[in-house]
């Protein structure tokens, strides 16, 4: 079924058991992003030191796609160099814009290639990007 390409098992797993959820008290930058058309919200705390993403914690409400995406994003960028994290972010963003034409770079995106199917559902792309945009915002503030 077409739907299975959207709701990959690994996405539903992250949705049910999100990683790094629950805001920690320690952070350098806090951002709040939302998706006005559907009401999804995420608050993201970021710690960064010497250009390395030291920690991410987050909280939010939203659909499976948006919540799973923040969860996987956190896994992917924690402990990465900022520059590498940006590379991953850009890869993910272009995967989302690929209209189902790309499978995603598994070396960079790891489990997040599971989101490839989302790119065929235009209305869901912004769900998948919500957490990434929050991270982009927070990390660029931190690096300023």
């Amino acid at each position: 079924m077409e739907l299975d390409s959207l709701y990959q098992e690994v996405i539903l797993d992250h949705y049910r058991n999100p990683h790094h959820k629950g805001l920690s008290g320690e952070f350098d930058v806090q951002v709040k992003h939302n998706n006005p058309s559907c009401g999804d919200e995420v608050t993201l705390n970021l710690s960064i030191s010497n250009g390395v993403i030291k920690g991410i914690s987050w909280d939010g409400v939203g659909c499976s796609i948006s919540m799973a995406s923040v969860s996987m994003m956190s896994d992917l960028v924690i402990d990465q160099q900022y520059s590498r994290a940006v590379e991953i972010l850009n890869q993910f963003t272009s995967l989302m814009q690929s209209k189902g034409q790309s499978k995603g770079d598994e070396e960079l995106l790891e489990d997040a290639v599971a989101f490839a199917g989302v790119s065929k559902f235009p209305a869901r792309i912004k769900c998948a990007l919500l957490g990434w945009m929050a991270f982009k915002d927070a990390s660029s503030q931190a690096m300023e």
Partner: protein
Amino acid sequence: MIDLTKYLEDFPILQRTVRGGNRLVYLDSGATSQKPEVVIAAESNFYRKHNSAVHRGAHLLAEEASLAYESARENVAKFIGAEIVETIFTKSATESINALAYSFSNSEPGSKFHLKSGDEILVSEMEHHANLIPWQQLAKRTGAKLRWFEVTPEGRLDLSKISELINKKTKIVAITHQSNVLGSITPLSKITAAAKSVGAIVVLDACQSVPHFEVNVKKLDVDFIAFSGHKMLGPTGIGVLWGRQSLLEEMPPFLFGGSMIDSVTMEQSTWAELPRKFEAGVPNMAQAVGLSAAVDYINQIGISNIHEHENQLTKALLAGLAHMQGVKVIGPTDLTERGAVVSFTVDGIHPHDVGQVLDQYGIAVRTGHHCAWPLMRKLNVVGTTRASFHLYNSISDVEKLLEGIAQVQSYFKVNK
């Protein structure tokens, strides 16, 4: 038992298939309705035969276009029991309500439309953003205070504080006729009576009522109503603002430009008579003509038949949902004072995901906050899934939806 199935074939879009090769089960008429062929043809026909700027030329086409446009006005006026000159075409209900709010701002001190610090504007927690933010911003511009009716846990307007909320300071009461989320219908007479006693102007957001049951502005005893054509089988790009003649005459205009003037010099201008005063520029002529065709179509079926048909579907859906584990209706669960809009939540599944799985079965519902974000917060939900009906829905659509929800639950393996 009303049977409207023979009308389904009038709607071209219902003949197509959607995701998964399924027939379209369109349950999103609360957002926008589908159009019968006669409406589509009326708009096309205007362009093919009579298109020309109304009220402006000396030529035959201008004459025909003006006749078509003014007849549309007459037809729409009759449909809501209004006078012709009181019936103003806008682009949408959103524009209609904003037009009012700006006309209030444009009025001079001393006029009954003039607001100032100390005055109050009353809305409710269940308003669509279109009937909330214009008033919130008007309050901000004028220093008036925005107040609101709360909503009960059952999804009804809480009128318990009405005598405090509608008081001598109240200048405007802007309220929805039917919630686009909950389906609950406002008990208007209590509100209009209270508003009248303090001389407040009552503005009714009739977006969810005019398309579904009889609305007669004279009987309602309100001062202004706003609604959109696209939710009542009409084209996009057309809405209506109705107001009492005496108020419209007193009220300053909102959009300035061609056709709405009486005289113009570089220094100053005076305004045309109603309804032109409120219709600046070359109007949305083809859309007015299309809306008029929609009114004809509704009249032919009978608005009360449509209402009863929708009631049957709502009843069946509410009954079906009541039997489902893990599904909760947000809003009244019986037919008392409620319309054909049913919101619900499914335990453990975000509305967006509910909608996505339903879409796979060809079922089009709306999910999210439905432009009523404050209501979502109040009811403590992140959003709802909403099914809404019009005359072209059938009991089979209700069955499809109920089956679909069960599929959603099993797809996401939630414990029922």
